[in-house]
Protein backbone atom coordinates (compact mmCIF):
# COMPACT_ATOMS: atom_id res chain seq x y z
CA UNK A 1 0.00 0.00 0.00
CA UNK A 2 2.68 2.49 0.98
CA UNK A 3 4.64 1.40 -2.10
CA UNK A 4 1.61 2.14 -4.30
CA UNK A 5 1.15 5.58 -2.75
CA UNK A 6 4.85 6.27 -3.12
CA UNK A 7 4.75 5.24 -6.80
CA UNK A 8 1.70 7.48 -7.40
CA UNK A 9 3.44 10.43 -5.73
CA UNK A 10 6.52 9.88 -7.87
CA UNK A 11 4.36 9.60 -10.97
CA UNK A 12 2.84 12.99 -10.09
CA UNK A 13 6.35 14.45 -9.89
CA UNK A 14 7.30 13.00 -13.31
CA UNK A 15 4.05 14.30 -14.74
CA UNK A 16 4.64 17.77 -13.28
CA UNK A 17 8.11 17.88 -14.87
CA UNK A 18 6.62 16.76 -18.20
CA UNK A 19 3.82 19.35 -18.09
CA UNK A 20 6.23 22.08 -16.99
CA UNK A 21 8.58 21.25 -19.88
CA UNK A 22 5.75 21.17 -22.41
CA UNK A 23 4.57 24.55 -21.17
CA UNK A 24 8.10 25.96 -21.31
CA UNK A 25 8.58 24.79 -24.91
CA UNK A 26 5.30 26.41 -25.95
CA UNK A 27 6.09 29.59 -24.03
CA UNK A 28 9.53 29.96 -25.63
CA UNK A 29 8.35 28.72 -29.05
CA UNK A 30 11.18 26.16 -29.21
CA UNK A 31 11.14 23.65 -32.11
CA UNK A 32 11.75 20.80 -29.59
CA UNK A 33 9.15 18.43 -28.10
CA UNK A 34 8.35 18.89 -24.41
CA UNK A 35 9.23 15.34 -23.40
CA UNK A 36 12.81 15.80 -24.63
CA UNK A 37 13.20 18.96 -22.58
CA UNK A 38 11.67 17.00 -19.68
CA UNK A 39 14.38 14.32 -19.83
CA UNK A 40 17.14 16.93 -19.95
CA UNK A 41 15.50 18.85 -17.08
CA UNK A 42 15.09 15.80 -14.81
CA UNK A 43 18.65 14.65 -15.63
CA UNK A 44 19.97 18.10 -14.69
CA UNK A 45 17.94 18.16 -11.45
CA UNK A 46 19.33 14.71 -10.53
CA UNK A 47 22.91 15.84 -11.29
CA UNK A 48 22.44 19.02 -9.23
CA UNK A 49 21.01 16.98 -6.35
CA UNK A 50 17.76 18.99 -6.33
CA UNK A 51 15.85 15.77 -7.07
CA UNK A 52 17.15 12.61 -5.37
CA UNK A 53 17.05 9.30 -7.23
CA UNK A 54 14.76 7.92 -4.47
CA UNK A 55 12.13 10.56 -5.30
CA UNK A 56 11.51 9.22 -8.81
CA UNK A 57 13.08 5.81 -9.41
CA UNK A 58 10.15 3.65 -8.26
CA UNK A 59 7.71 5.21 -10.74
CA UNK A 60 10.31 5.66 -13.49
CA UNK A 61 11.45 2.03 -13.38
CA UNK A 62 7.85 0.81 -13.42
CA UNK A 63 6.92 2.99 -16.41
CA UNK A 64 10.10 2.08 -18.30
CA UNK A 65 9.51 -1.62 -17.69
CA UNK A 66 6.28 -1.23 -19.67
CA UNK A 67 7.44 1.55 -22.03
CA UNK A 68 6.86 -0.68 -25.03
CA UNK A 69 3.13 -0.88 -24.13
CA UNK A 70 2.51 2.73 -25.18
CA UNK A 71 3.61 1.98 -28.72
CA UNK A 72 1.03 -0.76 -29.26
CA UNK A 73 -1.94 1.67 -29.50
CA UNK A 74 0.23 4.11 -31.49
CA UNK A 75 1.20 1.41 -34.01
CA UNK A 76 -2.49 0.52 -34.44
CA UNK A 77 -2.65 3.94 -36.18
CA UNK A 78 -0.78 2.40 -39.12
CA UNK A 79 -4.07 0.80 -40.23
CA UNK A 80 -5.15 4.27 -41.38
CA UNK A 81 -2.27 4.62 -43.84
CA UNK A 82 -2.69 1.42 -45.80
CA UNK A 83 -3.59 3.43 -48.93
CA UNK A 84 -0.40 5.49 -49.07
CA UNK A 85 1.66 2.38 -48.37
CA UNK A 86 -0.13 0.48 -51.18
CA UNK A 87 0.25 3.33 -53.70
CA UNK A 88 3.96 3.94 -53.17
CA UNK A 89 4.63 0.59 -51.55
CA UNK A 90 7.91 -0.57 -53.06
CA UNK A 91 9.73 2.78 -52.95
CA UNK A 92 8.53 3.48 -49.42
CA UNK A 93 9.49 0.01 -48.23
CA UNK A 94 12.94 0.39 -49.77
CA UNK A 95 13.39 3.89 -48.31
CA UNK A 96 12.24 2.86 -44.83
CA UNK A 97 14.21 -0.39 -44.70
CA UNK A 98 17.53 0.90 -46.09
CA UNK A 99 17.42 4.12 -44.08
CA UNK A 100 16.96 1.99 -40.96
CA UNK A 101 19.58 -0.66 -41.73
CA UNK A 102 22.40 1.70 -42.83
CA UNK A 103 22.40 3.98 -39.76
CA UNK A 104 21.73 1.04 -37.42
CA UNK A 105 24.91 -0.71 -38.55
CA UNK A 106 26.85 2.58 -38.83
CA UNK A 107 26.03 3.68 -35.27
CA UNK A 108 26.47 0.21 -33.77
CA UNK A 109 29.70 -0.51 -35.64
CA UNK A 110 31.28 2.91 -35.10
CA UNK A 111 30.47 3.06 -31.37
CA UNK A 112 31.79 -0.47 -30.82
CA UNK A 113 34.98 0.41 -32.72
CA UNK A 114 35.52 3.68 -30.82
CA UNK A 115 34.77 2.00 -27.47
CA UNK A 116 37.21 -0.83 -28.20
CA UNK A 117 39.89 1.73 -29.07
CA UNK A 118 39.15 3.80 -25.93
CA UNK A 119 39.53 0.73 -23.72
CA UNK A 120 42.67 -0.53 -25.46
Amino acid at each position, binding site marked *: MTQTLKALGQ*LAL*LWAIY*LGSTWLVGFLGL*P*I*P*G*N*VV*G*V*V*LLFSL*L*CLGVVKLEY*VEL*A*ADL*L*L*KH*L*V*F*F*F*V*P*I*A*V*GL*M*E*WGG*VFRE*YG*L*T*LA*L*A*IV*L*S*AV*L*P*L*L*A*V*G*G*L*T*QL*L*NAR*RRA
Partner: protein
Amino acid sequence: MSTTLLCIGLTLAAYAGVRALYLRYRHPLLNVVALGAGLVIAALLALHIPYADYVPAQKIMTALLGPATVGLAVPLYRYRSLLLRAAPAILGSVALGAVLAMLSAGGIAKLGGLPQDVVVSILPKGVSIPFAVEIAQIYHGIPALAAAFVVATGTLGSLFGGWLLTLARVRDPMARGLALGTVSHGQGTATALMEGEQQGAMAGLAMILAGICTAGFAPLAVLLLGLG
Protein backbone atom coordinates in the same frame (compact mmCIF):
# COMPACT_ATOMS: atom_id res chain seq x y z
CA MET B 1 -17.86 4.49 -24.17
CA SER B 2 -18.27 0.71 -24.20
CA THR B 3 -16.32 0.62 -27.50
CA THR B 4 -13.52 2.54 -25.79
CA LEU B 5 -13.46 0.07 -22.92
CA LEU B 6 -13.47 -2.82 -25.38
CA CYS B 7 -10.56 -1.26 -27.30
CA ILE B 8 -8.57 -0.78 -24.09
CA GLY B 9 -9.32 -4.36 -23.05
CA LEU B 10 -8.24 -5.69 -26.44
CA THR B 11 -4.99 -3.71 -26.38
CA LEU B 12 -4.14 -4.73 -22.80
CA ALA B 13 -4.86 -8.38 -23.59
CA ALA B 14 -2.73 -8.27 -26.76
CA TYR B 15 0.12 -6.57 -24.87
CA ALA B 16 0.00 -8.93 -21.89
CA GLY B 17 -0.29 -12.00 -24.11
CA VAL B 18 2.57 -11.18 -26.48
CA ARG B 19 4.76 -9.95 -23.62
CA ALA B 20 4.27 -13.22 -21.71
CA LEU B 21 5.12 -15.19 -24.88
CA TYR B 22 8.22 -13.04 -25.49
CA LEU B 23 9.47 -13.42 -21.90
CA ARG B 24 8.93 -17.19 -22.15
CA TYR B 25 10.55 -17.83 -25.56
CA ARG B 26 12.67 -14.65 -26.19
CA HIS B 27 12.16 -14.97 -29.94
CA PRO B 28 12.59 -11.65 -31.87
CA LEU B 29 9.51 -12.33 -33.96
CA LEU B 30 7.42 -12.27 -30.77
CA ASN B 31 7.66 -8.47 -31.00
CA VAL B 32 5.33 -6.77 -28.56
CA VAL B 33 4.69 -3.67 -30.71
CA ALA B 34 4.35 -5.30 -34.14
CA LEU B 35 2.56 -8.46 -33.08
CA GLY B 36 0.49 -6.70 -30.39
CA ALA B 37 -0.68 -3.97 -32.79
CA GLY B 38 -1.26 -6.58 -35.53
CA LEU B 39 -3.55 -8.55 -33.20
CA VAL B 40 -5.45 -5.39 -32.21
CA ILE B 41 -5.87 -4.35 -35.88
CA ALA B 42 -7.09 -7.84 -36.78
CA ALA B 43 -9.61 -7.74 -33.91
CA LEU B 44 -10.83 -4.23 -34.90
CA LEU B 45 -11.32 -5.38 -38.51
CA ALA B 46 -13.10 -8.56 -37.41
CA LEU B 47 -15.42 -6.59 -35.09
CA HIS B 48 -15.98 -3.85 -37.74
CA ILE B 49 -14.68 -1.13 -35.42
CA PRO B 50 -13.30 1.78 -37.50
CA TYR B 51 -9.99 3.39 -36.49
CA ALA B 52 -11.80 6.62 -35.51
CA ASP B 53 -13.57 4.68 -32.74
CA TYR B 54 -10.21 3.42 -31.48
CA VAL B 55 -8.73 6.93 -31.14
CA PRO B 56 -10.32 7.79 -27.72
CA ALA B 57 -8.92 4.55 -26.26
CA GLN B 58 -5.53 5.36 -27.82
CA LYS B 59 -5.55 8.81 -26.18
CA ILE B 60 -6.28 7.32 -22.74
CA MET B 61 -3.65 4.59 -23.06
CA THR B 62 -0.87 6.91 -24.23
CA ALA B 63 -1.55 9.57 -21.56
CA LEU B 64 1.39 8.31 -19.49
CA LEU B 65 3.89 8.25 -22.38
CA GLY B 66 5.06 11.80 -21.61
CA PRO B 67 5.93 11.17 -17.93
CA ALA B 68 7.35 7.74 -18.88
CA THR B 69 9.71 9.39 -21.38
CA VAL B 70 10.79 11.91 -18.74
CA GLY B 71 11.59 8.87 -16.56
CA LEU B 72 14.38 7.95 -19.03
CA ALA B 73 16.49 10.46 -17.10
CA VAL B 74 16.75 7.83 -14.33
CA PRO B 75 18.75 5.16 -16.26
CA LEU B 76 20.71 7.99 -17.91
CA TYR B 77 21.66 9.31 -14.47
CA ARG B 78 22.69 5.81 -13.31
CA TYR B 79 25.05 5.56 -16.30
CA ARG B 80 26.30 9.17 -16.12
CA SER B 81 29.98 8.31 -15.60
CA LEU B 82 30.05 5.95 -18.60
CA LEU B 83 28.21 8.58 -20.59
CA LEU B 84 30.82 11.25 -19.85
CA ARG B 85 33.75 8.94 -20.60
CA ALA B 86 32.35 7.92 -23.99
CA ALA B 87 30.90 11.31 -24.94
CA PRO B 88 32.87 11.81 -28.21
CA ALA B 89 32.02 8.30 -29.50
CA ILE B 90 28.36 8.78 -28.58
CA LEU B 91 28.00 12.20 -30.19
CA GLY B 92 29.91 11.26 -33.36
CA SER B 93 28.07 8.00 -33.95
CA VAL B 94 24.60 9.35 -33.32
CA ALA B 95 25.14 12.47 -35.47
CA LEU B 96 26.43 10.29 -38.33
CA GLY B 97 23.46 7.93 -37.93
CA ALA B 98 20.89 10.73 -37.92
CA VAL B 99 22.30 12.34 -41.10
CA LEU B 100 22.63 8.95 -42.83
CA ALA B 101 19.00 8.10 -41.97
CA MET B 102 17.69 11.37 -43.45
CA LEU B 103 19.79 11.27 -46.61
CA SER B 104 19.11 7.59 -47.40
CA ALA B 105 15.36 7.82 -46.73
CA GLY B 106 14.94 11.12 -48.60
CA GLY B 107 17.29 10.10 -51.41
CA ILE B 108 15.51 6.82 -52.16
CA ALA B 109 12.07 8.44 -51.89
CA LYS B 110 13.13 11.19 -54.31
CA LEU B 111 14.73 8.76 -56.79
CA GLY B 112 11.54 6.68 -56.62
CA GLY B 113 9.61 9.71 -57.86
CA LEU B 114 7.49 10.32 -54.76
CA PRO B 115 5.74 13.71 -54.45
CA GLN B 116 7.85 16.34 -52.67
CA ASP B 117 5.59 16.58 -49.60
CA VAL B 118 5.90 12.81 -49.10
CA VAL B 119 9.71 12.99 -49.48
CA VAL B 120 9.88 15.75 -46.85
CA SER B 121 7.61 13.75 -44.53
CA ILE B 122 9.93 10.73 -44.66
CA LEU B 123 13.07 12.69 -43.67
CA PRO B 124 12.46 12.70 -39.88
CA LYS B 125 11.23 9.09 -39.73
CA GLY B 126 13.94 8.01 -37.30
CA VAL B 127 12.97 10.37 -34.48
CA SER B 128 10.12 10.39 -31.99
CA ILE B 129 6.71 11.58 -33.18
CA PRO B 130 6.70 15.06 -31.59
CA PHE B 131 10.06 15.81 -33.25
CA ALA B 132 9.04 14.36 -36.62
CA VAL B 133 5.77 16.29 -36.75
CA GLU B 134 7.56 19.53 -35.92
CA ILE B 135 10.26 18.98 -38.57
CA ALA B 136 7.73 17.91 -41.24
CA GLN B 137 5.72 21.07 -40.60
CA ILE B 138 8.72 23.37 -40.88
CA TYR B 139 9.54 22.02 -44.37
CA HIS B 140 5.92 21.75 -45.62
CA GLY B 141 5.51 17.99 -45.28
CA ILE B 142 2.41 16.13 -44.05
CA PRO B 143 2.51 15.71 -40.24
CA ALA B 144 0.17 12.68 -40.10
CA LEU B 145 2.21 10.91 -42.78
CA ALA B 146 5.43 11.78 -40.98
CA ALA B 147 3.98 10.18 -37.84
CA ALA B 148 3.04 7.06 -39.85
CA PHE B 149 6.63 6.76 -41.18
CA VAL B 150 7.95 7.14 -37.64
CA VAL B 151 5.74 4.33 -36.41
CA ALA B 152 6.63 2.10 -39.39
CA THR B 153 10.36 2.67 -38.81
CA GLY B 154 10.04 2.13 -35.09
CA THR B 155 8.15 -1.11 -35.57
CA LEU B 156 10.73 -2.30 -38.10
CA GLY B 157 13.62 -1.37 -35.81
CA SER B 158 12.14 -3.08 -32.78
CA LEU B 159 11.31 -6.13 -34.89
CA PHE B 160 14.68 -6.68 -36.60
CA GLY B 161 17.14 -4.22 -35.01
CA GLY B 162 18.48 -6.49 -32.29
CA TRP B 163 18.74 -9.47 -34.62
CA LEU B 164 20.55 -7.43 -37.28
CA LEU B 165 23.04 -6.05 -34.74
CA THR B 166 23.76 -9.57 -33.49
CA LEU B 167 24.24 -10.71 -37.09
CA ALA B 168 26.73 -7.85 -37.63
CA ARG B 169 28.53 -8.94 -34.39
CA VAL B 170 27.78 -5.70 -32.56
CA ARG B 171 27.94 -6.98 -28.97
CA ASP B 172 28.91 -3.86 -27.00
CA PRO B 173 25.76 -2.98 -24.98
CA MET B 174 26.37 0.75 -25.44
CA ALA B 175 26.71 0.36 -29.21
CA ARG B 176 23.54 -1.75 -29.42
CA GLY B 177 21.54 0.75 -27.37
CA LEU B 178 22.77 3.78 -29.31
CA ALA B 179 22.03 2.12 -32.66
CA LEU B 180 18.48 1.12 -31.64
CA GLY B 181 17.71 4.55 -30.19
CA THR B 182 19.10 6.47 -33.17
CA VAL B 183 17.23 4.45 -35.77
CA SER B 184 13.92 3.75 -34.09
CA HIS B 185 13.39 6.32 -31.31
CA GLY B 186 11.03 5.35 -28.46
CA GLN B 187 10.16 1.97 -29.89
CA GLY B 188 13.83 1.13 -30.27
CA THR B 189 14.44 2.40 -26.73
CA ALA B 190 11.63 0.26 -25.34
CA THR B 191 13.07 -2.75 -27.18
CA ALA B 192 16.58 -1.96 -25.91
CA LEU B 193 15.20 -1.73 -22.35
CA MET B 194 13.90 -5.29 -22.72
CA GLU B 195 17.50 -6.31 -23.62
CA GLY B 196 19.05 -4.63 -20.59
CA GLU B 197 19.23 -1.43 -18.55
CA GLN B 198 22.47 -0.13 -20.10
CA GLN B 199 21.14 -0.71 -23.61
CA GLY B 200 17.95 1.10 -22.59
CA ALA B 201 19.76 4.09 -21.08
CA MET B 202 21.95 4.47 -24.18
CA ALA B 203 18.97 4.11 -26.50
CA GLY B 204 17.13 6.82 -24.58
CA LEU B 205 20.16 9.08 -24.86
CA ALA B 206 20.51 8.31 -28.59
CA MET B 207 16.82 9.05 -29.13
CA ILE B 208 17.23 12.50 -27.60
CA LEU B 209 20.48 13.27 -29.44
CA ALA B 210 19.14 11.91 -32.74
CA GLY B 211 16.08 14.13 -32.39
CA ILE B 212 18.25 17.20 -31.84
CA CYS B 213 20.71 16.23 -34.65
CA THR B 214 17.86 15.52 -37.08
CA ALA B 215 16.24 18.88 -36.36
CA GLY B 216 19.65 20.57 -36.63
CA PHE B 217 20.77 18.87 -39.85
CA ALA B 218 17.34 18.90 -41.56
CA PRO B 219 18.10 22.19 -43.43
CA LEU B 220 21.26 20.54 -44.83
CA ALA B 221 19.35 17.42 -45.95
CA VAL B 222 16.64 19.57 -47.55
CA LEU B 223 19.34 21.52 -49.40
CA LEU B 224 21.33 18.44 -50.52
CA LEU B 225 18.19 16.66 -51.74
CA GLY B 226 16.97 19.77 -53.55
CA LEU B 227 13.70 19.95 -51.59
CA GLY B 228 13.92 23.60 -50.59
